[in-house]
């Protein structure tokens, strides 16, 4: 009896306030989709970080003959075999270094050819012009500075380059976008909460006759408030469901099909379905609890028991 009674009250309430209910559903859906999107974005960034940081090297470029003429850092002339050996053994002694590999100018030329193919610039290059280099893999990619201070400016070294610096710019950009998404989400959330409070208020007002009579005959506060709270929770849950749908569809069309970034940018590791699926329970729970709490607090003000 009780459950049936409460359910019918919820249905009546939602239908009576159809436009408001719709507004609540849409705003909850949008804010939670943004919420989920920003969570996934963080996941994506850390996936990429893990993938790329694993691959990034610190490179020590050595002076070749043409550098010796043009670059002031190589004023002492092209690198000598002794200097190379010294660098190699010094690197071997450093605790932060995990692996060192040597790239000769011929190898560099080959890699360059592979990457840029028959572009006019590539065809004008000769192996002599390419630099020899040491590619160093660090145990901790953050420790680049140790290498830089040790080798920058040393005779025979043209420059020390950290690839992580380039990546960090990219991640910085992604993070910035992520924060922007969170800011929009926060505002949407405020909008959604205000809409819920207002919807509950209107709902309570339009049913003040019923609630007044309920009070008179001794209905408990919970019993009077439950239909309103559940109304908000149901509307929120529908919004949450829509938000989950958005995320699944977005994952599908952006990464796998449609935009198909996974095929176009095959150097990037994308988040998998599991990352999306694990966010859904959180979103659904939020969509249920947040409006219910908002309604609860709104009722304390607008529905005297």
């Amino acid at each position, binding site marked *: *009896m009780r459950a049936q009674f409460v359910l019918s009250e919820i249905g009546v309430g939602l239908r009576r306030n159809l436009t408001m209910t719709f507004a609540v559903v849409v705003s909850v859906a949008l804010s939670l989709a943004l919420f989920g999107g920003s969570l996934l974005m963080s996941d994506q960034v850390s996936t990429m970080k893990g993938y790329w940081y694993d691959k990034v090297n610190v490179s020590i470029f050595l002076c070749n003959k043409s550098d010796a003429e043009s670059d002031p850092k190589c004023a002492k002339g092209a690198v000598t075999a002794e200097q190379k050996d010294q660098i190699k053994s010094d690197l071997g002694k450093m605790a932060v270094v995990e692996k060192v590999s040597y790239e000769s100018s011929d190898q560099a030329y080959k890699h360059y050819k592979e990457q840029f193919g028959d572009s006019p610039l590539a065809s004008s290059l000769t192996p002599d012009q390419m630099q020899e280099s040491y590619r160093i893999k660090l145990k901790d990619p953050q420790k680049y500075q140790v290498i830089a201070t040790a080798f920058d400016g040393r005779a025979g070294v043209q420059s020390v380059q950290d690839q992580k610096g380039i990546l960090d710019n990219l991640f910085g950009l992604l993070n910035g976008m992520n924060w922007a998404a969170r800011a929009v989400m926060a505002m949407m959330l405020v909008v959604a909460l205000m809409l819920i409070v207002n919807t509950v208020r209107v709902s309570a007002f339009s049913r003040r*006759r019923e609630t007044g*009579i*309920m009070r008179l*005959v*001794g209905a408990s*506060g919970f019993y009077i408030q439950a239909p309103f709270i559940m109304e908000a929770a149901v509307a929120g849950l529908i919004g949450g469901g829509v938000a989950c749908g958005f995320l699944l569809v977005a994952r599908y069309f952006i990464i796998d099909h449609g935009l198909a970034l996974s095929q176009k940018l095959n150097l990037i590791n994308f988040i998998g379905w599991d990352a999306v699926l694990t966010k859904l329970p959180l979103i659904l729970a939020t969509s249920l609890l947040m409006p219910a709490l908002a309604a609860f607090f709104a009722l304390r003000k607008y529905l005297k*028991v």
Partner: protein
Amino acid sequence: MIRFDSVSKVYPKQTRPALRDVTLEVERGEFVFLVGSSGSGKSTFLRLILREERTSQGQVHVLGKDLARLSNWKVPQMRRQLGTVFQDFRLLPNKTVSENVAFAQEVIGKSRGEIRKSVPQVLDLVGLGGKEDRMPGELSGGEQQRVAIARAFVNRPKLLIADEPTGNLDPQTSVGIMKLLDRINRTGTTVLMATHDQNIVDQMRKRVIELEQGRLVRDQARGVYGYQH
């Protein structure tokens, strides 16, 4: 049943108290009229009993409980032992007569079987047998008030509070309502009725409590409406 101990009530932002130092007691099974002109404090008196308001000073005991000490969440329990009837009936217009009465039982979680048994019973008692499926809008004022009384009485309260129950009714219909309230009183239910209806008070010859500007000015067993009339 009801006890007021030096009760005063001042509403916020008002300097004149709505009730001043009222002390009285209503015993179990009594029938009491509460009279007084508009603004004399009758409504405040009833609202204090229903604990829609709290006293500024003094204590109100209803059914043996000190309402000041009653925590908010226990108030509904207390109200279930009271029945209330109002001048404007307060029926739900989109529910039938029996649904309106059943509402009072659904809301406090009575079982379907209990409701099915007690609703026709109480409708018979108030003389509305056969009109269970009518809508309130199809009924006369007197019949609507009977529905309201049925709803107030269906949970068998120990105390029935009626705020000008005949205020919207013609004299003949009012008599019918009074007979009904009298019959309910004879089942042992205490009845407290606020009214402006001089004829009714004079005919019934019950206890009369009169308020004037928030003071208790008369408490008379077997009284009449007022000396000045």
